């Protein structure tokens, strides 16, 4: 299911950004496999249980990847796929950053960076007090790991041994104005999480098998999965190109991109 979900979501996200003139397609294509494995396989969530107090919680901190988030969720059945048609347009349900208001299954509105991990830690602490054993998944971008609030919350998650918290970093190495290592270096990135008391695993972030196995693995400590990804994944002229954080695909881009996705049906 994650494979088909990712395939449909890539097509939708491209069409959504092109149609509405929205940015961030590179970030959406980067994170879609992670989200497809979460919603399609690993997380104990369902469109029929969005209010169930025992459901897992998926938080997408990189709110700018909204087109990808919405595309995955619509194709997973959380809301009508037709809602994607007016993404980012006047009066739409769906805005350019992830919003929880009126969108079934979205747990937290995000957009400003560095917000979801502290929130997730709060939910995990409440679960611990309530004796609820469910998982909290927090998807971060790599660029947003410059936000200090993430590291404040990372300290707290380790301090309280919040084993149910799993961070997945979409490590595509690019941010708005350049490579993360040129803008404000994160490396040695895995060591930073380890030093904060987290268990760390690095995976190929477009390999659904690797992602699924890493996400299913449990520990007595909070876990950080560094998912090595390619920004713009699946469209050759967008892949690993800094400008596709910001640029909007025109009609020609869209036709070419959709054709490429049609021929490259297998994941990396």
């Amino acid at each position: 299911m994650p494979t088909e979900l990712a395939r449909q979501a890539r097509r939708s996200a491209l069409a959504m950004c092109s149609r509405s003139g929205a940015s961030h397609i590179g970030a959406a294509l980067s994170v879609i496999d992670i989200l497809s494995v979460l919603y399609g396989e690993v997380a104990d969530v369902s469109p029929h249980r969005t209010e169930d107090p025992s459901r897992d919680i998926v938080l997408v901190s990189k709110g700018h990847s909204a087109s990808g988030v919405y595309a995955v969720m619509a194709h997973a059945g959380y809301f009508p796929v037709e809602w994607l048609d007016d993404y980012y347009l006047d009066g739409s349900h769906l805005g350019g950053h992830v919003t929880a208001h009126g969108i079934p299954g979205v747990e937290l509105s995000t957009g400003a960076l560095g917000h979801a991990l502290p929130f997730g830690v709060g939910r995990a602490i409440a679960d611990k007090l309530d004796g609820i054993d469910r998982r909290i998944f927090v998807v971060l971008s790599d660029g947003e790991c410059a936000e200090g609030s993430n590291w404040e919350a990372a300290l707290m998650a380790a301090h309280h041994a919040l084993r149910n918290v799993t961070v997945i970093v979409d490590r595509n190495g690019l941010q708005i104005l350049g490579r993360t290592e040129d803008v404000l270096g994160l490396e040695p990135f895995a060591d930073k999480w380890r030093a904060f008391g987290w268990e760390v695993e690095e995976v190929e972030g477009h390999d659904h098998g690797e992602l699924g196995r890493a996400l299913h693995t449990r520990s007595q400590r909070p876990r950080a999965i560094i998912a090595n990804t390619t920004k713009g994944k699946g469209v050759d002229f967008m892949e690993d190109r800094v400008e596709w954080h910001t640029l909007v695909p025109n009609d020609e881009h869209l036709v070419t991109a959709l054709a490429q996705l049609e021929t490259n049906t297998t994941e990396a």
Partner: protein
Amino acid sequence: MRDAFVRKLTEEAETNEDVMLLVGDLGFGVVAAFGDAYPKQFLNCGVAEQSMVGVAAGLAASGRRPFVYSISNFPSLRPLEQIRNDVCYHGLGVTLVAVGTGLAYGALGYTHHGVEDMSILRSLPGMRVYTPADALECAAAVDEILADPSPAYLRLGKNKEPLMHDEQPDLSTGAPLLIREGTDVTVIAAGPIITQALAVAEELEPEGVSVRVLTCPVIKPLNAEAVHAAATGTAGIVTLEEHTVLGGFGSAVLEGFALQGYRTPVLPLGLADAATHIIGGQEWIRERAGLSTDHVRSSVAAFARRNA
């Protein structure tokens, strides 16, 4: 007032296990009683206010009623975006509690002066703002906060504020509370600076100016109608706050009056638009930062004469 707050919250925690106290590693000798009595409802989040407010939002999303306690600007300005996005955007029942606002920590320097907080917090959507003048108003504010599951900001003084009431007042209407009757001019104070309003009223009595004095612990939602009614029969309203005059209680009154079409004269008294470099206690800085008793007295007297 901080002791009264912790005492009140400890009482609430006994019957309401959703009530939680989160601290940013502040409150030595003040918060321990709560933590000892209700360890599962107490969380020291460390010196990490952004995370603390995000955590509080997560707890509130799981049904808790967290009170985020720190001093001065640390629970408000430092994590402002978390308050705006995580708390207000989602309409979550998180309460920010700031102890020692205004110039209460005067000698600790401008970093510790909570003098812009009301303006900023007041502008956030759905945020209720309470600025009690004494321990009884503080307890009443906690009751009001818990009666509604929406965001709130509780702006406290420090300690040993004289009591203004015999019993806990009712804040449900948000109406200002009469402390001293008078017939010529009305002074409404926000918070513990009520003591200065009362001192000015005493000093003006022999000069033939009769000053009515009220507190207004509910800054938002402001009951402009009740504020307006409170000044009935007097020349107008002087608002008094240990806070910048830009955007605080006085501004709230002026906005409310403009929207209602009230023409009652209003004089907003507060701190000037300047970071203070003065070192000294609360009274020392008040005297030198535009809130001296002399200045307030002469301003009230002139306002009363001008609008008589």
